[in-house]
């Protein structure tokens, strides 16, 4: 019998609500579901919301009765905000989060590196936004709860999975005992400690690093801006690294690396936490400022991924699929991209709009993204927590040189999470004009946002299906193109036509963006009327043309939806 705690989790800033468990005795017998999602973190809930956008219902089962303990993921990237905009929670994130774009690294009291993340006037969202994970989960949950296609079950813990021919049987334990769910697809979004992954005996590939970090949230009044602070080799913690981030509600995240050999249990003793946090505050000139602990935990960096995310009827996503280092904010930000990718590709397979090859493509694309992150994040991790004597020596040599030598300072860069470009995706059109463009997002790239007016951006107008952007000054979309569009829609494929560049509504287009100053055209590298882009439902580019014709549009759509 699964008995999740009914006591609200302790927090000095977040009022936890305890939800009622979903009990099988209070519901009629279960049909076979199309999708069951295990886990209600960012990856699980975004997957459900994306599936629902495509009309696919899902059941979310989650073991606990409340949102997750502690702030956990606190930094969200611009691309994450663009994804959250698609599922309807970006406004609440923006309203309550702290935007920022600067990072500072210190050594021996000197600022030796300053990161300035560019903020393009064409972007709606800041490069980074800090907000505690509980709020992010609350906003996503409210969106799930408001969606009739999402059946959200608190207090339901997956105990076992049996793969059958074409479906899975999921044994779920609840506060009144267990029941069995049948589902065509089980999405495992239960996070890094996935018991489903362990029970299926799936091996992850990559590296684990030994250095432990304490992650502590404290409430303190510090007169410092919202910028990332990194301190290397401070006097109070020689050889190790300390990070600080401002969070909403007067909370600061303090992360510090432990000396080798110290156990997490030793590090989390109250007197140890007190002494070290006091020492850090003293070092930054705020010793003696009163503070209060909210939450603390211990973390060690790993760069691991499953080599395939689809196993029979079970699909792994987010941290259940890979474990990525926090340096560079890789966890939740990668999970959003995983979920956005999975949502539409799983929906299209379920609806018969594409064959199972589309899920194989999803896996290949996201495993590729994880490997890219492992390559990049591994570099940051080896700098933050050198894994060997050689790496320590090099890191220390760079620290020392950085006091006077500019050329080593970029090595401090933490290589912030950025969206993976699916450059070699099987969905990219081989017969288009991708290589003839000299600007604009290329094959597999996420879209470029463009400011259209006050509080009005290009991406506000896109999403939920395939998007055909036609750059034209003509009165109407050419009839042969429209015939392809119509035939595609007849098959059930959502495809919207947006005309860009005409002063008056273009006949045959679903919407017209005048683009009077040619800004969209420039950002997309389109020189003349007749150019076009085809975006996938996750907004990544799969085809672009200098001059679009019906035949090549048909070919691109066929490539993007393998049968």
């Amino acid at each position: 019998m699964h008995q999740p705690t009914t006591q609200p989790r302790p927090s000095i800033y977040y009022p936890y609500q305890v939800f009622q468990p979903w009990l099988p005795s209070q519901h009629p017998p279960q049909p076979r579901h199309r999708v069951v999602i295990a886990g209600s973190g960012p990856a699980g809930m975004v997957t459900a919301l994306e599936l629902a956008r495509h009309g696919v219902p899902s059941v979310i089962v989650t073991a606990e009765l409340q949102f997750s303990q502690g702030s956990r993921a606190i930094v969200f990237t611009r691309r994450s905000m663009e994804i959250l905009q698609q599922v309807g929670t970006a406004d609440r994130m923006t309203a309550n989060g702290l935007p920022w774009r600067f990072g500072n690294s210190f050594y021996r009291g000197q600022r030796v590196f300053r990161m300035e993340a560019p903020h393009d006037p064409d972007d709606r969202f800041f490069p980074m936004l800090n907000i505690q994970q509980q709020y992010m989960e609350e906003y996503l949950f409210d969106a799930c709860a408001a969606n009739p296609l999402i059946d959200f079950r608190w207090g339901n813990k997956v105990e076992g999975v049996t793969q059958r021919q074409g479906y899975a049987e999921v044994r779920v334990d609840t506060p009144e005992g267990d029941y069995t769910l049948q589902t065509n697809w089980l999405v495992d979004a239960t996070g890094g400690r996935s018991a489903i992954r362990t029970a299926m005996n799936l091996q992850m590939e990559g590296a684990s690093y030994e250095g432990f970090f304490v992650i502590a949230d404290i409430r303190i009044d510090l007169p410092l801006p919202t910028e990332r602070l990194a301190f290397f080799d401070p006097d109070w913690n020689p050889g190790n690294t300390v990070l600080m981030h401002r969070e909403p509600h007067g909370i600061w995240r303090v992360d510090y690396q432990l000396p080798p050999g110290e156990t997490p249990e030793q590090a989390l003793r109250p007197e140890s936490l007190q002494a070290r946090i006091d020492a850090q505050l003293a070092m930054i000139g705020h010793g003696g400022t009163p503070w209060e602990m909210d939450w603390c935990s211990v973390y060690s960096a790993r760069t691991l991924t499953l080599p395939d995310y689809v196993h029979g009827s079970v699909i792994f996503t987010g941290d259940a699929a890979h474990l990525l280092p926090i340096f560079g904010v890789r966890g939740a930000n990668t999970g959003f991209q995983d979920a956005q990718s999975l949502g539409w590709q799983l929906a299209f397979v379920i609806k018969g709009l594409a064959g199972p090859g589309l899920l194989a493509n999803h896996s290949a694309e996201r495993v590729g993204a994880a490997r890219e992150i492992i390559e990049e994040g591994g570099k940051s991790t080896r700098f933050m927590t050198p894994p060997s004597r050689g790496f320590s020596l090099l890191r220390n040599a760079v620290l020392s040189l950085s006091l006077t030598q500019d050329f080593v300072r970029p090595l401090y860069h933490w290589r912030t999470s950025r969206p993976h470009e699916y450059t070699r995706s099987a969905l990219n059109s081989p017969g288009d004009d991708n290589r003839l463009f000299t600007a604009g997002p290329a094959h597999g790239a996420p879209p470029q946002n463009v400011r259209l007016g006050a509080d009005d951006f290009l991406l506000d107008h896109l999403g939920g299906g395939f998007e055909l952007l036609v750059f034209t000054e003509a009165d109407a979309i050419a009839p042969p193109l429209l015939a392809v569009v119509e035939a595609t829609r007849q098959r059930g494929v959502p495809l919207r036509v947006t005309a860009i560049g005409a002063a008056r509504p273009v006949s045959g287009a679903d919407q017209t963006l005048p683009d009077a100053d040619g800004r969209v055209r420039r950002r997309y590298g389109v020189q003349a009327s007749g150019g076009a882009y085809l975006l996938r439902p996750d907004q990544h580019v799969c085809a672009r043309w200098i001059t679009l014709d019906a035949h090549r549009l048909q070919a691109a759509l066929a490539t993007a939806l393998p049968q």
Partner: protein
Amino acid sequence: MNAPQTLSLAGLEAVYDALATAIDQAGPEKSELFLVKLALLNAQALGDADAFRRQIDTALRDL
């Protein structure tokens, strides 16, 4: 292409003495750190990651 610039014998002798003296000056605790810093400064001056990797291979020989 010009032949790569090399040290004269007098120059090599000067480097020899200067490096030995600097290692002593850094002391046993810091000489390794000093040598890694020096290697990075030299790599930057060399401006060629492949050539530096070949120097690493050469230096690893016959230890």
